[in-house]
């Protein structure tokens, strides 16, 4: 690793990458902690943006280029927009929301710690002998991702489309019932007797 770094004095040597990785990781962790502890709903959503963006940078540093930008596009660009849209639709106040605290802090902390331990243990155990090769070919480029996806993982990919369809139909069914019970004028008369 060292001699490769000596050959290519880029901006980020592998050790530089590692240092950046740890720093960004700490920032991400801090943002995540703020997300769950802040009493202001929209601030929580914005700290979530920071945390998700930090994760994207981490992916980038692990040469998982494609996943990193998926993270930005899907999580920052659409899931957070979905959250903010929801918060704005339901009148998120400016300032503290007193009811943002569910008073279950210690239980939540326990659950979070347990989940973290389980995840770390599982991941470490599963990838014990696998290392990300930072100075070789980029392992997470979109080409590599596509190749492995469409060579080895076609069936899960197709199953995913069914899952997405189910989610779509579920969302529509739920929202339709809501819309009709709220007395909104609807074009279909089928839902009337349900509510």
């Amino acid at each position: 690793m060292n001699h490769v770094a000596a050959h290519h004095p880029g901006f980020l040597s592998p050790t530089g990458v590692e240092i950046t990785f740890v720093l960004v990781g700490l920032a991400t962790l801090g943002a995540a902690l703020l997300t769950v502890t802040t009493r202001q709903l929209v601030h929580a959503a914005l700290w979530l943006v920071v945390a998700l963006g930090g994760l994207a940078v981490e992916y980038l540093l692990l040469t998982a280029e494609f996943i990193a930008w998926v993270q930005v596009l899907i999580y920052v660009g659409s899931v957070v927009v979905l959250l903010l849209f929801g918060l704005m639709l339901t009148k998120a106040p400016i300032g503290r929301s007193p009811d943002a605290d569910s008073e279950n802090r210690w239980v939540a902390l326990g659950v979070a710690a347990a989940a973290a331990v389980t995840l770390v243990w599982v991941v470490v155990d599963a990838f014990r002998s696998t290392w990300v090769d930072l100075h070789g070919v980029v392992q997470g480029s979109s080409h590599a991702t596509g190749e492995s996806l469409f060579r080895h993982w076609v069936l899960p990919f197709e199953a995913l489309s069914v899952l997405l369809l189910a989610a779509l139909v579920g969302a529509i069914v739920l929202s339709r019932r809501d819309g009709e019970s709220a007395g909104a004028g609807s074009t279909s008369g089928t839902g009337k007797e349900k509510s």
Partner: protein
Amino acid sequence: MDYFHGYSVVGLVAVVGVLFVTVAFASGRLLRPVVPTREKMLTYECGVDPVGEGWAHTQIKYYVYSFLYVIFAVDAIFLFPWATVFAAPGFGATTLVEMFVFIGFLAVGLLYAWKKGVLEWT
């Protein structure tokens, strides 16, 4: 190492951008007057004092658009790695059909939403 070089340049652009904004705001602070009055700090509602709160009844059913969007965005993501490989040797028509099946399911979802009138606002 090209990879890290490339993204460190991108990172540097972001830093340059942050610097630009910081400098702009800092110099703005030096240039502009600060004369706050109570009227200035009021919420602007075309000159009259603000009435009520910044909230009106909004139908939550519009929220279904955001679900639709997230689901379709997840779908669209898969097109990109697919686009880079499907015409390569060893993939070809089979991969094309696989993607058509995938998109087909989603198109069914879109048709369902259309049929249910979700895509109309009134």
